[in-house]
């Protein structure tokens, strides 16, 4: 099976400051890495590749020149080759544009070697929209399932998967090709091997711009579709409370009072 994993290079930091003047994230000088959620997609792709003989995994990424590092990091983990969608006109596109460009990349890969499965992380750790994978399915007109926690089985034509839902788990059968976004519970990503690291430096990574993808400028441009009103960092997490008291009764009384104070009871 030909599996495509979509990855994004994102700031490798948990706290990204917001520029008070522009209201935009100050990403300059931050270290970049693979979007953590994508690591689960990569791991799952490699596991499926190891299970289904003759499979290959292509890493696909949209981003500036530095995004190639993320592609090579994925190859170091066990993917075979990469495709990098890079063009000045792609800069600053929104989620619709991103998913459109990724869909063009996948069509191009599909034409060379039919794609059976597209895997994505459930969201990126910078924009956190979680919309790219479902939109990708729509552009491709392939089935798409988000928040997947398990591949119960997979062959060339059909995947049996479990999707996490608020009230439990949905067990689904999906015809392939399909787009699937995965959550952390699906696996534990491996570390790259030394041989993988060394191979990744030599592995082929195709570079495709607007011309190669035959992208329609109007669909790429974010103009008019999206307006960012403002951005603020999430409030810092408050500390916990140590329950005081020498006896169980005292502790219980404290907890009860606290719950009343918070109007939980």
């Amino acid at each position, binding site marked *: 099976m030909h599996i495509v994993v979509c990855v994004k290079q994102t700031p490798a930091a948990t706290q990204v400051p917001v520029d008070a003047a522009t209201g935009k994230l100050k990403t300059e000088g931050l270290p970049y890495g693979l979007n953590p959620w994508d690591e689960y997609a990569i791991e799952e792709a490699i596991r499926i590749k190891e299970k289904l003989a003759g499979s290959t995994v292509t890493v696909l990424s949209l981003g500036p020149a530095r995004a190639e590092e993320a592609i090579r990091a994925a190859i170091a983990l066990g993917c075979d080759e990469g495709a990098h969608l890079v063009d000045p006109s792609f800069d600053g596109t929104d989620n619709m544009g991103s998913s459109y460009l990724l869909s063009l990349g996948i069509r191009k890969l599909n034409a060379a070697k039919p794609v059976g499965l597209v895997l994505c992380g459930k969201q990126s750790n910078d924009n956190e929209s979680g919309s790219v994978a479902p939109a990708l399915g729509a552009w491709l007109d392939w089935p798409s399932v988000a928040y997947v926690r398990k591949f119960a089985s997979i062959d060339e034509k059909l995947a049996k998967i479990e999707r996490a839902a608020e009230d439990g788990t949905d067990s689904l059968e999906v015809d392939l090709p399909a787009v699937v976004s995965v959550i952390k519970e699906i696996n534990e990503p491996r570390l790259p*091997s*030394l041989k*993988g690291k*060394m191979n990744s430096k030599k592995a082929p990574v195709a570079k495709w711009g607007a011309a190669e993808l035959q992208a329609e400028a109007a669909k790429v441009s974010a103009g008019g579709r999206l307006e960012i009103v403002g951005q603020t960092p999430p409030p810092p997490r408050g500390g916990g409370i140590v329950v005081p008291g020498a006896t169980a009764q005292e502790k219980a009384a404290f907890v009860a009072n606290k719950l009343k104070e918070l109007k939980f009871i």
Partner: protein
Amino acid sequence: MDYGFTEQQQEIVNLARAIAQKKIRPVREHYDQTEEFPWPIVEELRKVGLFGVYLPEEVDGLGGGNLELVLAAEELSKACGGIALCVATSSLCALPILLYGSPELRKKYLPDLATGKKLGAFNITEPGAGSDATATKATAVLQGDHYVVNGIKNFCSTGKDADTYVIFATTNPNRGARGISAFVVEKGTPGFTFGKKEEKMGIRANGTYELVFQNCKIPKENLIYKEGYGLFIAQLTFDYSRPGVAAQAIGIAQGALDETMSYIRQRKQFGQSISSFQAIQHMMADCATQIEAGRALLYATVRAMDASNGPAIRKAMEENKVVADCMNELDTKRWTKESGMVKVFCSDTAMRVATDCVQMCGGIGYMRDFPVEKYMRDAKITQIYEGTNQIQRNEIAMMMIKEAASKSKKDLVAA
């Protein structure tokens, strides 16, 4: 300090550091307390391919040399010297096979050691033969197509948990030192069992066992090189492996100092951090200086060793020969003196630094629920194994006398 590593060497450092800090550090106390063998960590090291960094690609290694091995050992030891030993003993088993083994023996045993699929161990010590390996009592008698081994070896690191063992036994008791031979023995060979497990001061994650041989039949082909070459094999192996002990020592010293620095900066007495006191500052400065001096000597030495040994190892791989024979052909330098110096300097440094770290931390430094005392316990062995530091000094001095004698002979000829 930037020591000018290649890209591959830097990757080894990064990867070993990631495993050390993310996987080993959180569990080191567990393995120290329970003395269990750290299999989950071994599995991690296997998956990333850290076992064979120093072995040629022909035997499924990464194609690096001693520097690659040393870098991995140092990083792992920063988190736990005991767990790092699991990689180190495999190399101590692989090295005699690499250096003196026939191409067939190399092909049979090195790939599994290089990938970490199998772990290796090395055992020369006996109850009556420690520093004096010539007193080896275990015997190996050739009977048809196999040797029959009898005797007890002890203090074997990774003792029961390895699969492949290099052991030493005498094939001719009348010839003393020249009668000792080296063999590869596989776990599960009838007549090969394990005796007592030692209770140790440090490096407790790695079990130390007695190996018991009772009419154990080993195929003739598992003799390494030739009969009577055991001590040559051991010496050349140690020349190559002692920098690994030095790397373990430097890692332990650095790990102890790192833990100490983070503690003394936040520990307040007399209204200020204890790191603001000059008495502490001088100790930490001395520790850091000694570590860096040891590290610089270590890297410089293994680089020189790799440059010197590399051509013989490559020649042996390409021409299907024994590495030691190629070393003779190419007149490769012996590194006994320099590798001894590195081992002495770095292990003495580790003991001194770890002791000072406990001192800087004060009462808490002595407690088991604080990590620094373990470094002090782990540091001690580096002054003892693979030749005590006293034996190292003997060897360094002996080489110095030899060199001086040959120099004065040359001067005489020149005059």
